[in-house]
């Protein structure tokens, strides 16, 4: 693996020919983790995952083992896997779904065994036509192989898995919106607390919702032991993680690196990774974890890729996507486009988010396109404050879900770092980068 000697855990088969097939999977150690898990008690499997300190790879970074332990005891419980990857600039799950679907599926089967659920749903973003086909094919092959279905590998454990296509809605990546969508409804997030999916989830039954990349880590953890996983990384950020690097870098791509041991500077500049900012330009800013995250500047380059380290510095690793903006980037335009995304994708349940996103988008649009007013910067911050009081990090919330408080960070970061650019736009009546 680049820069450290940690093994490649989720990307071991990437780049191999036919990496998505059962044949290739079996030839490279596939389903050995499941065989091993079935010789253990469900509680022992869960204990290994807990010992691994695997943080959920969807965005919130909640420990997977703890999430499992919160599942309420009930005769009918479900496992739902979130493959609705749509956070802008995040493309790791897309890659895993297309190139190694069996690894995800094996993680699902092992997890279902540990949780003793007999029905799992894999919700995959509708726009991933090839990913859906690869997973459906993998599932058919796994049924035939006896890895899923009745009496798996003669263990007495039975499980059905259903691949469920989404239909185009960012909000369905939010776990309760995903459950609503899976129930055949609009993707309206549910109010929580008091009841999280682990207590009241799919069809009102206790449900564990885990991300695709989280599932992809499970076979390795069971095969090699939770301790081996926890030995990688540092602090609460154990193991490796797949980072999606995009924007103004020489080599955009998804890179699996050991957590904490590698810094943003390494990820962006190392020859084996991003290879540096393009065309010899200077780094202006970068987004460290999806567009809901406050932007970082060059002074943050030496921060390690660790959940707590990034959190303490005032942003988040979030969905594991890093967007690099060089000196040719217009901060107003970038903030406007991100805000336009939220304005399009708000589900419309909560007024601050539904109305605020649209207002912010229109104000940013007019600043970028020459119609900005002197009072606009203050107005932007005031609307942000109404969505997320104090416009601080971590954000406050006035809405049912976190889409609302995800809107202000890019705007407040752009204003606090590049406020002079906003002023120039307003004073000159247009974009200086045009």
């Amino acid at each position, binding site marked *: 693996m680049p820069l450290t000697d940690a093994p490649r855990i989720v990307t071991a088969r990437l780049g191999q020919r036919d990496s998505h097939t059962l044949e290739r999977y079996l030839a490279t150690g596939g389903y050995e983790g499941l065989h091993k898990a079935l010789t253990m008690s469900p509680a022992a499997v869960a204990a290994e995952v807990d010992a691994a300190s695997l943080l959920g790879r969807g965005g919130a970074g909640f420990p997977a083992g703890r999430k499992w332990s919160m599942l309420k005891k009930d005769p009918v419980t479900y496992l739902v896997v979130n493959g609705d990857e749509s956070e802008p600039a995040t493309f790791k*799950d897309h890659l895993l779904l297309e190139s190694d679907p069996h690894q995800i599926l094996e993680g699902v089967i092992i997890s279902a065994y540990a949780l003793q659920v007999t*029905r799992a749903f894999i919700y995959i973003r509708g726009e991933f036509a090839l990913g859906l086909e690869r997973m459906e094919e993998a599932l058919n092959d796994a049924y035939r192989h006896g890895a899923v279905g009745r009496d798996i590998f003669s263990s007495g454990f039975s499980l059905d898995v259903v691949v469920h296509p989404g239909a185009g809605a960012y909000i369905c990546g939010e776990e309760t919106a995903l459950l609503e969508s899976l129930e055949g409804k609009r993707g309206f997030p549910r109010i929580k607390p008091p009841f999280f999916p682990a207590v009241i989830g799919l069809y009102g039954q206790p449900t564990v919702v885990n991300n695709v990349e989280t599932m992809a880590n499970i076979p390795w953890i069971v095969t090699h032991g939770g301790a081996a996983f926890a030995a990688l990384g540092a602090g609460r950020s154990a193991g490796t993680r797949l980072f999606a690097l995009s924007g103004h870098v020489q080599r*955009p791509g998804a890179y699996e690196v050991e957590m904490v041991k590698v810094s943003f500077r390494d990820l962006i500049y190392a020859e084996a990774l991003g290879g540096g900012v393009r065309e010899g330009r200077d780094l202006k800013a970068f987004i460290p974890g999806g567009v809901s995250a406050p932007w970082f500047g060059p002074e943050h380059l030496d921060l390690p890729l660790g959940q707590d380290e990034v959190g303490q510095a005032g942003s988040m690793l979030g969905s594991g996507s890093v967007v690099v903006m060089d000196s040719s980037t217009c901060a107003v335009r970038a903030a406007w486009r991100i805000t336009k995304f939220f304005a399009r994708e708000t589900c419309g349940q909560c007024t601050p988010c539904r109305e605020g996103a649209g207002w912010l988008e229109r104000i940013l649009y007019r600043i970028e396109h020459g119609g900005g007013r002197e009072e606009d910067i203050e107005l932007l911050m005031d609307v942000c404050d109404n969505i997320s009081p104090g416009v601080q990090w971590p954000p406050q919330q006035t809405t049912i879900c976190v889409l609302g408080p995800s809107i202000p960070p890019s705007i407040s970061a752009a204003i606090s770092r590049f406020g002079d650019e906003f002023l120039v736009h307003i004073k000159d009546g247009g974009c200086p980068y045009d």
Partner: protein
Amino acid sequence: MSHFTTPMAARARQLVALYPEPRSALLPLCHLAQEQDGWLRPEAMVEIAELVGVTPAEVRGTASFYDMLHTEPVGKYLVSVCTNIACLLDGAAELLAHAEERLAVRVGSTSEDGLFTLEEAECLADCDHPPCVQVNHRFVRTTTADQFDALIDELSAGGRADEIPTHGTLVRIRRNGGLRVDPEEIARERARAAGRAG
């Protein structure tokens, strides 16, 4: 009289049977209807409503929430150009403007020959190949105007049919068989779900 053809109606029933509550099949059934008709026709929504036990208005109200479900006709090829942040940084606005010119349509409309509908997409999760373009939700990776034009020429001439099926066909791999877990356990699960729904 079913709006779905006989084989499609059989697939519809198989889909409904996969879930503890029939309503969960609503989105998959909408995809199925689009596979048959190219878009989501009102007659299909009426039939889906019957299949999952809700009103046609609930089907329409749900479908209209989702970008991929089209309650009006679209072209044989839906061309989606992402302009979100990673693509914006690498010429997405310019490529979208080029696409409008090449296809002689504005974003959101369909070419006169009915072949192409152009849409401005949100992030499609292929950000290491910017700007990202999908045709009928297949990644085509045409990142320059020239590559885009070559693709449009090819599609106009009926090419790449194996790789890019006509709009509406999402997943060409069929699930092999239904549920396998002990039927009694499935019945118990269904009873719980029905109790809650009732």
